[in-house]
């Protein structure tokens, strides 16, 4: 069913935008930041506040979510995260879980525990028929935005100097430093960018996913699955992984609702058994 394919792609692309930041920080800094979802939540709640309290148009919320989450990311990175780069993965896990707790409770305190709902601008609502599929306008919008972002990302990473410096730092940080690349600056910038993207994803997803204080914990699993399946060495890996997972999840739930939940986990386990570095990872000897 084309409709389901379409829905799956929309869901997958949203997942991609949400997870790509985590993927890059993991690949680049080898830092397991489970609190990535908290930045997405920040973007989502910011959108809620801006729209519901101040009546600002949805279209302004998107860049605002990106910028504010990016700033938040930079601040946290400089103050807290950077102290943990040398620590073990376990310490990083512990730290990021602590951060999730703080974020969840803080949001709960300020905004309450119920789900937040935003009302999209009227012309983003509705559906239409196209080639036999029922297309939701908003999901089309999500696909377009995410598609543009992906293209932009690919361009930045593949074609700009910053991108090549980033790739160099990912491949081998020490050598990169030796070549005079300011790896610390790249870390900070990349982290900011990744958090910004997460915030944007949160803003986009506020209408599709449920936005409440437990968001980071609920969706952390999905982000991690995307990364595990897609690998951390490329951008295209997680991209295709998210699409695959989005479609599989949606299609699974549509055709066989009773085992809906299994599909996404089983795929991940199977992929990891046969290709521990992820489906699309380049074989880098690390």
């Amino acid at each position, binding site marked *: 069913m084309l409709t*389901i394919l379409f829905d799956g792609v929309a869901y997958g692309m949203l997942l991609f935008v949400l997870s790509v930041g985590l993927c890059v920080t993991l690949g680049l800094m080898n830092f397991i930041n489970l609190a990535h979802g908290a930045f997405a939540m920040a973007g989502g709640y910011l959108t809620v506040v801006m729209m519901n309290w101040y009546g600002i148009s949805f279209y302004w919320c998107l860049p605002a979510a990106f910028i504010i989450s990016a700033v938040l990311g930079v601040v946290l990175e400089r103050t807290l995260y950077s102290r943990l780069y040398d620590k073990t993965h376990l310490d990083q896990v512990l730290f990021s879980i602590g951060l999730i707790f703080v974020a969840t409770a803080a949001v709960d305190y300020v905004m*309450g525990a119920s*789900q937040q*709902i935003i009302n999209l601008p009227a012309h983003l*609502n509705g559906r239409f028929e196209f080639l036999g599929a029922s297309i939701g306008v908003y999901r089309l919008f999500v696909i377009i935005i995410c598609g543009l972002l992906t293209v932009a990302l690919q361009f930045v990473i593949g074609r700009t100097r910053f991108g090549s410096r980033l790739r160099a730092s990912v491949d081998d940080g020490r050598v990169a430093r030796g070549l005079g690349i300011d790896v610390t600056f790249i870390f900070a910038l990349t982290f900011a960018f990744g958090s910004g993207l997460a915030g944007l994803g949160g803003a986009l997803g506020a209408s599709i996913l*449920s936005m409440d204080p437990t968001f980071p914990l609920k969706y952390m699993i999905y982000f991690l699955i995307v990364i595990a399946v897609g690998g951390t060495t490329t951008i295209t890996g997680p991209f295709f992984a998210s699409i695959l997972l989005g479609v599989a*999840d*949606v299609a699974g739930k*549509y055709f066989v609702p009773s085992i809906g939940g299994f599909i996404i986990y089983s795929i991940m386990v199977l992929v990891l058994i046969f290709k521990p570095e992820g489906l699309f990872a380049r074989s880098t000897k690390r």
Partner: protein
Amino acid sequence: MQRRTVVAGLAGSVFAATFAGGVQSAAAQEVVKIGLIATLTGPQAASGRQKVAGAKLFMAQHGNKVAGKTIELIVKDDTGVADQTRRIAQELIVNDKVAFLAGFSLTPLALAVAPVITQAKVPAIIMTAGTSVITERSPYFVRVSFTLPQQTVPIAEWAAKNGVKTAVSLVSDYGPGIDTQDAFKQRLEERGGKVVEQIKAPLANPEFAPFLQRAKDLKPDALLLFVPAPTAGSLMRQVVDRDLAGAGIKVIGTGDITDDDQLNSMGDAVIGLITSHFYSAAHDSPLNKKFVTEFKQANPGMRPNFIAVSGYDGMYAMYEALKKTGGKTDGTALVEAMKGMKWESPRGMMSIDPATRDVVQDVYIRKVEKKDGELYNIEFDVVKDVKDPLHK
């Protein structure tokens, strides 16, 4: 060797801290304690808040003295994990010597304490959990809230009377959800309708779209929805997004999907939705108007919903029981006192069935309409004294 000393000292002090933490409170004859176990953190937190707010409002309105005793309300968070609920219940009974337990946001939480209250002979007032079987699991359970079958049967009747021949049900896959779909199917098919498919969505479900799409493609006359109230918002969003109304499908359900607390934020698209439930904040009675006004004053930004009123009525039942026993806290006597109680609550008339200790109440059919600029469930029909159909 020094390092080890401190390790040991640390371990010792940890246990000592545990010592210090729980001081045995004297079993003062003049104080009657009520242990309210609510889920205040996690996905069900919103309902826990409503419950506590409703209970506290009752105490604010009626004072804390009953039958010569002072009432103390102890509120605990069980984080929605059943073995926590049980442990907290045990601690409340053993340490604080509570005369009542109350709360229970989810079915497994209530079921977990069943053996405890039976053994300790302490009445437990159910203020939320909606699966029928709970009250059968211990003679000390008394429910003042609702059961899903009780709420579902009226909407099934309404559907049958209003031209619904085929229906699909979409529920969250857990106790109350299963109860709802089964009760609906049974009643609709008794009246000549047919439930084409029963779709179950996982409880912790991020995306309703595929399930809704599947329901839509089956082209039924009506779609029955049930999810726990805190997730109703995002479900209704998706319902609107899928344009089920445009496909000619009537969306119906129990009042959980038009929860008063979230109704306003669902937007105008849900106007016209028909649900059956026992409480609406727009219920037209002086008692309810007072309840709603004072609730809003005490809790700015919140509108009371069916869980708040259950918390409120739970306190009422406990107060009245104490009055009947003259302040005595014998568990069995308190339960007896509650059997057969009948009173007017902000929701309307309700009573406790002496045979099943479950709530019997009026269930209203309501429609979502705009009133004074806000969305409300406006009652337009009522089924009186509905009992839970699943109890023997």
